[in-house]
């Protein structure tokens, strides 16, 4: 845990070497609560066993003809159950405390660790996967402590106590309960070996059935349009049939659960044994009554342990998955001593020199070389999976190149201080993330509480967002997200641009694939984008032909290789894949475009700035 991007003061350190040790170290943190629980459970069980003994002596008293004694015993019973009740409440409340604290602490631990992980880790990990651990696995931890541990321990105490009390009446009486305990353990072991695979595959098949049905329903338009209803029905019926068979099989196995049979046999044998000892005057009638009462107590440990152990198993498995995240090493060094830029910070020159990069064994980028002068806009074109996004991620060191060099201002990015580098390289991602807070908070996110309203509004104006923000009833205080307004893709993008403008980076990476439904929105977005490009080196991944067409330079990527690079006009004449992109736009226009190009370019130079800023 040495490399981390974020830590807090007074952090409690748990043992991460194995799931069991991790669980124990969490319990150890609450050791006094655990100790209290153990004592309370022993007390409660002892007291409850005592009820049986007292009942037995009540029989002796009555059969011996002493009514006074019966009164005393009844009084003793009342006191006993009152004490037992108190101990029992303690024995139930302490595991709740321990369990809930465990979950609270584990959650905080996971959260802290997530904040400290590198971006590489978060890119690799799916949100849904982490959420499953933070939500489901945590619930399983909770169930493991209470009722899992609680019942397992409490049942064992009950079993041991019952045996001790039976032994105290007469050690010979232990014969039947001991035999029962052994045969019970064996039966349960066989039973779970038999049942577990069936219930596992049952769960699996239910998931399969659900998934397949879900698919048929989500794709209903295709199913209907291609007249495949019958084959879908057949598919479903087959899955439902498999599930039904497993369900019945599961029922048959459950029907074969032997311990209840063992218990009734044990009760009969115990009674017989008791009667035998009674007849040979080794025990009294009262002892026999007490003994039978204690035998019935065995029912509780006998029927709950199986469930408790499966809860514990699930909990340990959950702990294992959580631990995997906690232990994941982050492969980043912050490079405190590194280059921080010259006196004016970063200029924004980017150069790739023969860069090759593989991700998990698959080559993604092969021998890429290009340069971007400060302030230039470079468009990257290529199919999905061609390596466009990966290329941009080498610049702010989300990944490091395998061979070759990535230079910023002539300095290898690995020589840069990570903070200095990242604070000057800003990314506007394809899926823009906004927090469920007010719009103002989202724009000011990078500056924390420090940003003043005037600066926020100015950034929003520059990003062409001020207008639509004003149109909301609560303006800048409008909440975004589930409890507030839903923003369109174009609006989200403009807020992200405002956010970036406020922090003022030198290099900007813009993954711009928001689809604009109408041209008016597009006008707004483009004005905002142009404002943010001004004076910054920009790498642009875009679906918009016009942006590609007007970029300073275009890189054409194909399966990780840089097929060609140059201006729009150069590429249009010599690069076949590039030409295909524009082929479906009126050929008449393309001719016109050729002839007008010089004229256009001249016009652009004159009108630049004027047009954009308007």
């Amino acid at each position: 845990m040495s490399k981390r991007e974020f830590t807090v003061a007074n952090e409690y350190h748990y043992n991460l070497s194995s799931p069991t040790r991790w669980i124990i170290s969490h319990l150890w943190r609450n050791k006094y609560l655990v100790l209290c629980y153990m004592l309370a459970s022993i007390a409660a069980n002892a007291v409850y066993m005592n009820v049986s003994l007292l009942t037995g002596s009540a029989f002796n008293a009555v059969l011996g003809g002493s009514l006074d004694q019966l009164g005393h015993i009844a009084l003793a019973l009342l006191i006993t159950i009152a004490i037992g009740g108190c101990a029992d409440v303690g024995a139930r409340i302490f595991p709740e405390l321990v369990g809930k604290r465990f979950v609270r602490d584990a959650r905080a631990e996971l959260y802290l660790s997530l904040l400290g992980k590198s971006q590489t880790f978060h890119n690799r990990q799916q949100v849904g996967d982490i959420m499953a651990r933070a939500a489901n696995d945590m619930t399983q931890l909770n169930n493991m402590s209470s009722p899992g541990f609680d019942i397992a321990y409490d049942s064992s105490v009950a079993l041991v106590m019952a045996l001790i009390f039976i032994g105290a009446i007469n050690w010979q009486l232990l014969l039947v309960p001991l035999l029962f305990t052994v045969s019970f353990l064996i039966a349960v072991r066989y039973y779970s070996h038999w049942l577990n695979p069936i219930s596992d595959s049952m769960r699996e098949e239910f998931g399969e059935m659900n998934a397949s049905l879900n698919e048929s329903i989500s794709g209903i338009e295709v199913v209907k349009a291609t007249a495949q209803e019958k084959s879908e029905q057949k598919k479903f019926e087959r899955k439902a049939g498999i599930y039904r068979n497993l369900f019945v099989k599961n029922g048959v196995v459950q029907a074969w659960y032997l311990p209840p049979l063992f218990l009734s046999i044990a009760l009969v044998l115990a009674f017989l044994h008791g009667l035998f000892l009674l007849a040979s005057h080794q025990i009294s009638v009262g002892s026999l009554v007490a003994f039978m009462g204690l035998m019935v107590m065995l029912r509780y440990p006998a029927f709950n342990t199986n469930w408790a152990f499966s809860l514990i198993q699930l909990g340990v498995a959950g702990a294992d998955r959580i631990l995997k995240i906690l232990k994941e090493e982050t492969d980043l060094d912050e490079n405190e001593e590194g280059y921080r830029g010259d006196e004016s910070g970063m200029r924004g020159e980017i150069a790739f020199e023969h860069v090759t990069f593989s991700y998990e064994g698959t080559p993604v980028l092969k021998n890429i070389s290009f340069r971007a002068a400060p302030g230039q806009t470079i468009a990257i074109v290529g199919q999905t999976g061609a390596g466009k996004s990966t290329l941009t991620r080498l610049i702010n060191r989300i990944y490091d190149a395998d061979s070759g060099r990535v230079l910023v201002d002539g300095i290898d990015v690995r020589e840069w201080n990570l903070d200095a580098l990242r604070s000057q390289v800003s990314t506007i991602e394809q899926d823009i993330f906004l927090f469920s807070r007010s719009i103002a908070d989202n724009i000011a996110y990078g500056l924390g509480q420090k940003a003043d309203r005037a600066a926020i509004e100015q950034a929003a104006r520059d990003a062409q967002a001020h207008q639509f923000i004003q149109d909301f009833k609560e303006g800048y205080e409008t909440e975004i997200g589930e409890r507030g307004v839903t923003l369109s893709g174009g609006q989200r993008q403009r807020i992200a641009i405002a956010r970036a403008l406020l922090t003022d980076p030198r290099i900007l990476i813009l993954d711009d694939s928001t689809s604009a439904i109408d041209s008016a929105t597009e006008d707004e977005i483009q004005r905002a984008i142009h404002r943010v490009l001004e004076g910054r080196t920009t790498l642009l991944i875009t679906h918009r032909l016009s942006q590609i067409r007007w970029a300073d330079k275009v890189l054409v990527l194909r399966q990780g290789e840089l097929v060609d690079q140059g201006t729009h006009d150069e590429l249009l004449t010599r690069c076949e894949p590039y030409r295909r992109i524009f082929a479906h736009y009126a050929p008449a226009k393309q001719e016109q475009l050729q002839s007008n190009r010089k004229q256009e370019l001249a016009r652009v130079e004159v009108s630049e700035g004027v047009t954009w800023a308007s």
Partner: protein
Amino acid sequence: MGFLMDGLEAEAYDRKYTDRALIGRIIGYFAPQKQLMITVAAMVILGSLVDTAFPLLVSRSLDIVIASQVVGTVALLIAAVLFAGMLSWTFNHFRVRFTTRAVGDVVLSLRNHAFSAVIARDMSFYDEFPSGKIVSRVTSDTEDFATVVTLTLNLLSQVLLFFLLAGILFFRNVYLALLALTIVPAIVIVALVFRRIARITTRRAQRSLARVNANVQEVVSGITVAKNFRQEQNMYDEFVRVNEQSYQVSLRSGFVYSGVFPLLFLIANLGTTIVVYFGGRSVFGHAISAGDWFLFVQSMGLLWFPLTSIASFWSQFQLGLSASERVFAVLDAEPRVHQHASEPVEQLRGKIEFRKMFFSYDDRQNVLAGFDLTIQPGETVAIVGHTGAGKSSLAKLIARFYEYQGGELLIDDRDIRSFELGSFHQKLGIVPQSPFLFSGTVTDNIRYARPEASDAEVEAIARSIGQGDWLEALPEGLNTLVGEAGRALSMGQRQLVALARVLLQDPAIIILDEATASVDPLTEAQIQEGLDLILKGRTAILIAHRLSTIEHADRILVLSHGRVVEEGDHEALLRQGGHYAQLYNTYFRHQSPDYRPGEGFVQVNPNLAVS
């Protein structure tokens, strides 16, 4: 003892059927299993009877032993007890077996019914219900339906046991039985009050847990932003606050849950004390025998347990009924599309004719009102218009996904309502706005409409689109797994697969509802090349959102408020300066490669463009 907690999280549900009707239908489903169910009922009754034998026989033998101190006479009774125990287990064994078999078969047939009901519905049904709800009706609700039965059986055996025991106690000694049963109201009240409190605390705990999870979700999804702007400390502080709150709330709920059992035990033990004391006095006064006294003491341990399940039965039973109701609602839903004949469709030339068509989705607002349109065989028609102009409705009517309210729709001069829809759909190719792919390989998906097509055929079709370049971008080519709903592929790749699927199907009529989502320029070019191929020699309706697609059309129709307001080709319509020119300025202007913000407007004649 989990049943005391069951069903606490469920929400209320509006009921439309009466309990009587529901129970009647449920029983109807079990009718084919009549023999099995009768056997199960017999097992339940016999099991309960045998279960009461144990305390009874033991107390009897105790009496004999106390009186005579001879083991020999008791031997027979002991053998009976052993026999009763084994019988009890056996009855239970067969009860469980038969119940699962009956329930498994009933659930299976109900599921199959529900599925065929669902799949037979027209698209208006799918508009009304989100797919998640439909799925849970077919799988989870049918399962809950069965719990009504299992619950009832359980309750039956518990109630039987309770009344048998209580009856025996009353038979032995009314006075002592009355004393023993004083705990009954106490336990029932505790169980009911507990469920009330538990429901409230559970809801609170769930709400605060949802807050914690939302918080974690936010930091995980927004980690890039948090890191970029170094806001980790603030995020952490906020989390600690929410987490602490959740801890407090869930702790309280945990106390409620675990507090109830000591309370129930306490009451049961009080009952035991009462029986021990007053029973002892009765034995002393020779009102009952020592064996009976023992019977009372033993019964106290058995009596309180069924009470808790009786107390929680009703609300769970209602939940089961609600689930059954949801299933029946699906089965009973009225289909809206009616065919008056089912003539098979062999060959189609592809002529489409709308005559005085009236159509609305919800009977409130007409999407089409007296709509007329004829599309000639082999013609490619692009339809453009504002959102809500009725573009997609035309496609959905041709696909017969919805019923129309008036007029006629003729395909090759035959009424669409006379078609056998399966064979008609074979001749109709649809590329929906966001193409849905089934999990499996790209090949599986291309051959979805024609499962008998060979691998070579599939490959030839795939290669013919966009020179096969798109296959290179797939990691495993045609064998690439597309993932759940095709999510492993980009939107553009999904569209290419959908095009290939339609091309292999080789229909006479093509309907393409173009995606509005943007696609990377290279893939976009491949899609356009695929379109060139697919439109050849077919009647095609393109609902166009892209400038490049419009250029394929022989004829452009401008739709506004359910009417064709302009038609012609791109150049002519632009020159006209009417609705189309206006649409161009609003939707297509920015798609031109020469676009610059705020420029590229075409001239609109204000007199023509009043919409």
